[in-house]
C-alpha cells in the first residue's frame, strides 16, 4: 500500500510527485530552466547526479504512517501536476513528462481505502473492469458482427454525391464547405454505426460529361463504379449532399430491406402525381408487362425510390445489384433520346427515368415506390409551405432521412441542415440518456446533461 513498496519505474514519476516532496513549493531555478527550455542540453553527468539525488531519497514509509496523511497523499497524488512545480529535486526526466500529468495508478487503491480488505476490493475492481470492458468492447463486438457476413453490413453501400458541380461552375463559400463537411460526417457516422460502406463521390464537373451533355447523369457512372468497387455489396443507397440522416439507431435492414413487400407500393396509382397510365393497356404485351404489381415477388424489386409532389425524386434512392439494374444504368442515358429531349428534361436524369418508366414496359415490374418519408422526407418549404404529413418530416415518427430538396432556390441550405443536425442530436441524446438511466442513472448524476430540455 505504501509508496515505498513499489518505486515508480520512472524516477521523478508518480511517487516523487512534487507536491509531496520535502521542500515542495520552493522551486529552484536549477529546476526548470534546463528542462523546460532545452531538455536536449542535459549532459549525462548532470542527469546521473540528479538520479542519484533521487535514489538517495529517504523511504516514504516513515512519513505515511497515519491514515489521514496517507489519504491526503493518495488524493493529491492523483491530481495532475505540472512539471513547473517540480520539487526540490528540480529535475524531471524527459520521458516522465507525460507521466506526471496522469494520476498515479496506485491512487485508485488509495481512493478505495475504505475497502481495505483485498477480497472485497477485488470484487469491486472486477466489476469495474467488467463494466469498463462492456463500455469499451461491446460496441467493438457489435461492430464486428455488423461488418460480418451474418450482420450484413457490407451488403449496403451508401453513395454520397458531394462537391456537386465543384471545381468549375462555382466557388464554394464557408457555408458550402460547412454543408459538405457536415453531410459527409453524418453519413460516415451512420455507415460506421451499422458497418455499411460509404462512398463519397466527387461530382466535380467533368469535361467528359459537359462534352457529351450528360451532366447529372454521372450518378449512373458513380453507381456503376461503386458496384465494381464493392463486388460483394447488394444494395446501393444514393444520397444527395443536402440530406441528413436523422436516426443513427435505425438500420436499413430493419427499416426496409428485411421486409420490402410491406413498405413498397408497386402500383403507381396509389400516389400518382404525374398521372402515369398504369397498368399499360397495350394488347401486345405479356401479362408481366400489363401487370399492376409486376411479378409480386420482393426479389424482383431492384430500384426503390420515392415520389414527391412533382414526380420521381432521386435525392435518395436504392438500387440492388442485378441484371435489370445493369440494363437500366446502361440505357438511362441515350444520345438519341437526349438529343430530342434535353430542352424538356429540366430535371435531367430524373425526367429521363420518368420517361423510361412510361415508355418502356420492362422497367415497371422491377421498380418499387416507397412512401416519401421512408427515406426522403422533405422539410417544410419544399413542395408547398403547408405541412403535408405524407411529404414533410414528422418528428414524432422519427423519420430516417430529411432531404433538403431545392434548398438552393431561395432557401437557406446550411440553416436547414444545421437545424436538422441539432434536432437529430437532441433526439438521439435523449435516447442515450434513457439507456444510461436504465443502468441506474449513474451517468446522469455524474454528468448532469444541461441540454436535455
Amino acid at each position: 500500500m505504501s509508496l515505498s513498496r513499489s518505486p515508480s519505474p520512472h524516477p521523478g514519476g508518480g511517487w516523487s510527485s512534487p507536491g509531496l516532496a520535502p521542500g515542495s513549493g520552493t522551486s529552484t531555478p536549477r529546476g526548470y530552466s534546463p528542462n523546460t527550455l532545452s531538455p536536449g542540453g542535459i549532459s549525462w553527468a548532470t542527469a546521473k547526479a540528479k538520479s542519484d539525488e533521487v535514489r538517495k531519497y529517504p523511504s516514504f514509509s516513515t512519513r505515511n504512517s497515519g491514515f489521514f496523511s496517507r489519504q491526503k497523499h493518495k488524493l493529491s497524488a492523483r491530481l495532475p501536476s505540472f512539471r513547473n512545480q517540480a520539487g526540490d529535486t528540480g529535475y524531471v526526466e524527459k520521458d516522465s513528462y507525460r507521466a506526471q500529468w496522469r494520476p498515479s495508478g496506485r491512487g485508485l487503491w488509495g481512493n478505495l481505502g475504505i475497502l481495505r480488505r483485498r477480497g472485497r476490493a477485488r470484487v469491486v475492481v472486477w466489476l469495474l473492469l467488467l463494466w469498463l470492458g462492456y463500455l469499451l468492447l461491446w460496441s467493438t463486438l457489435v461492430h464486428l458482427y455488423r461488418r460480418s457476413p451474418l450482420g450484413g453490413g457490407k451488403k449496403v453501400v451508401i453513395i454520397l454525391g458531394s462537391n456537386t458541380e465543384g471545381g468549375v461552375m462555382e466557388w464554394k463559400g464557408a457555408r458550402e464547405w460547412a454543408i459538405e463537411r457536415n453531410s459527409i460526417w453524418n453519413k460516415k457516422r451512420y455507415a460506421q454505426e451499422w458497418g455499411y460502406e460509404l462512398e463519397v463521390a466527387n461530382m466535380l464537373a467533368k469535361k467528359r460529361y459537359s462534352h457529351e451533355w450528360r451532366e447529372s447523369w454521372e450518378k449512373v457512372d458513380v453507381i456503376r463504379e461503386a458496384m465494381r468497387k464493392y463486388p460483394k455489396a447488394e444494395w446501393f443507397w444514393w444520397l444527395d449532399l443536402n440530406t441528413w440522416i436523422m436516426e443513427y439507431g435505425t438500420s436499413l435492414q430493419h427499416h426496409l430491406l428485411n421486409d420490402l413487400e410491406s413498405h413498397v407500393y408497386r402500383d403507381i396509382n396509389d400516389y400518382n402525381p404525374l398521372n402515369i397510365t398504369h397498368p399499360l393497356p397495350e394488347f401486345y404485351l405479356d401479362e408481366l408487362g400489363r401487370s399492376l404489381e409486376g411479378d409480386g415477388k420482393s426479389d424482383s424489386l431492384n430500384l426503390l425510390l420515392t415520389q414527391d409532389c412533382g414526380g420521381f425524386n432521386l435525392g435518395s434512392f436504392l438500387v440492388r445489384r442485378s441484371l435489370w439494374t445493369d440494363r437500366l444504368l446502361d440505357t438511362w442515358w441515350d444520345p438519341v433520346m437526349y438529343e430530342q429531349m434535353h430542352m424538356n428534361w429540366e430535371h435531367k436524369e430524373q425526367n429521363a427515368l420518368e420517361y423510361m418508366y412510361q415508355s418502356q414496359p420492362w422497367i415497371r415490374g422491377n421498380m418499387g415506390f416507397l412512401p416519401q418519408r421512408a427515406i426522403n422526407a422533405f422539410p417544410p418549404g419544399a413542395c408547398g409551405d403547408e405541412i403535408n404529413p405524407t411529404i414533410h418530416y414528422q418528428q414524432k415518427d422519427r423519420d430516417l432521412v430529411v432531404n433538403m430538396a431545392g434548398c438552393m432556390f431561395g432557401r437557406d441550405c446550411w440553416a436547414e441542415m444545421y437545424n436538422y443536425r441539432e434536432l437529430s442530436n437532441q433526439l438521439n441524446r435523449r435516447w442515450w440518456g434513457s439507456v444510461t438511466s436504465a443502468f441506474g442513472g449513474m451517468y446522469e448524476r455524474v454528468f448532469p446533461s444541461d441540454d436535455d430540455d
Partner: protein
Amino acid sequence: MQFALPPRKSPHRLPKSSQLPPYRRTQLKTIAVCACLVLSILYLLSYFFSASTASIGAPVGTSGVVIVTLLDREHFSESYIKKIVTNREDYANRHGYTNFFASLSDYDEAVGDSPKSWATVPAVRHAMASYPHAAHFFHLSPHALIMNPSRSLKSLLLDSSRLESLMLKDLPVVPPDSIIKTFSHLKEKDIDLVITQDSDDLNPGSFMLRNGDFARFFLDLWFDPLFRSYNFAKAEAHGLDHIMQWHPTVLARTALVPQRVLSAYSKDSHGASTDGMYHDGDFLIRFPGCDNLQVKECTEMEPYYMIWQKKIKSG
C-alpha cells in the same frame, strides 16, 4: 458420474470394430472404388448429355420455337400471303415449331406516325405474350422463303457447339468499320439474340431471340417512342444499329453469325455482305428489295417458290 452406456463395455467392443477381418477390408475397398467409378461415369455422362442437348440456354419450363411472320394483309395479295403461309407451315410441321402470323394493321396504333416497318418489334412482343412458354422466337420477314426445310433450327443455329462455331467475334457491329466490335470473350450461353449483318447494317429481317427478361428489355428499348420519332433513314434497322453500338448490355447478349446462315440475299438484291448471297442448299433466301415497298407480292420470289415446291414434292 453416470453414463448412459457403461464405459466398461467400449474397450471390449473397440477391437472388434477396428480389426476387420482382411477379406471384409478388401471387399470394402472394391466397393468404394466401384462407387467412385460409377459416380464419375454418371457425372461425365450428365456433363456430355447436357452439353450436347442444351440449346442456347432456354429458360426453365420453356420449349420449342415460334416463327414470327408479319403480314401486311392490306397490301399483299391473297395468293402471295398463301405462298408465304404454306412455306412457313410446311417447315413448322416438319420440326414441331409454331407459327405466329401477325397482321401489320394490328400495330398501327402502337407504331403511330413512324414507318410501318417498326411493327416488327411489337409483333415479336405479341408472339411472346401469346406463347409465353416457347423458348425461342424466330422473326422472319415475309419476303423470305425457307429453302432447305429439312434443316432444323437446332442443327442450324441453336445447338450450343454449332452456335459457338458460328459466332463472329471482335467484328465491327455496324459494317464496315464501326469502332464498336462484338465482344471477343462471349460464350454461347450468354447469347439471347442471334442476328446477321448485310453490307450496311444489322439485319432485323431475320433474327432469333431467346425468351426471357432480356427479350422484353431489348424489344421495349428498341421500340422506344424517341427512337421511332428520330427519323432514322432505315427506321428500325438503324434503330437497332444505334442500340447495339451504344448499349453494351445489349451487345453483350448478341451473337453475330455469317449472313448466309440466317439471311442469304437473293442474287438481284443489293447490299449483301461478302459471301452473303444465296447459294443452293442454304437454309433460307431473303428478298430485301421487296421489304420497303408496299407491294402486292414480291415477284422476285416466284422462281424460288417453284424450286421450293419441287423440292418438297420430291423429298
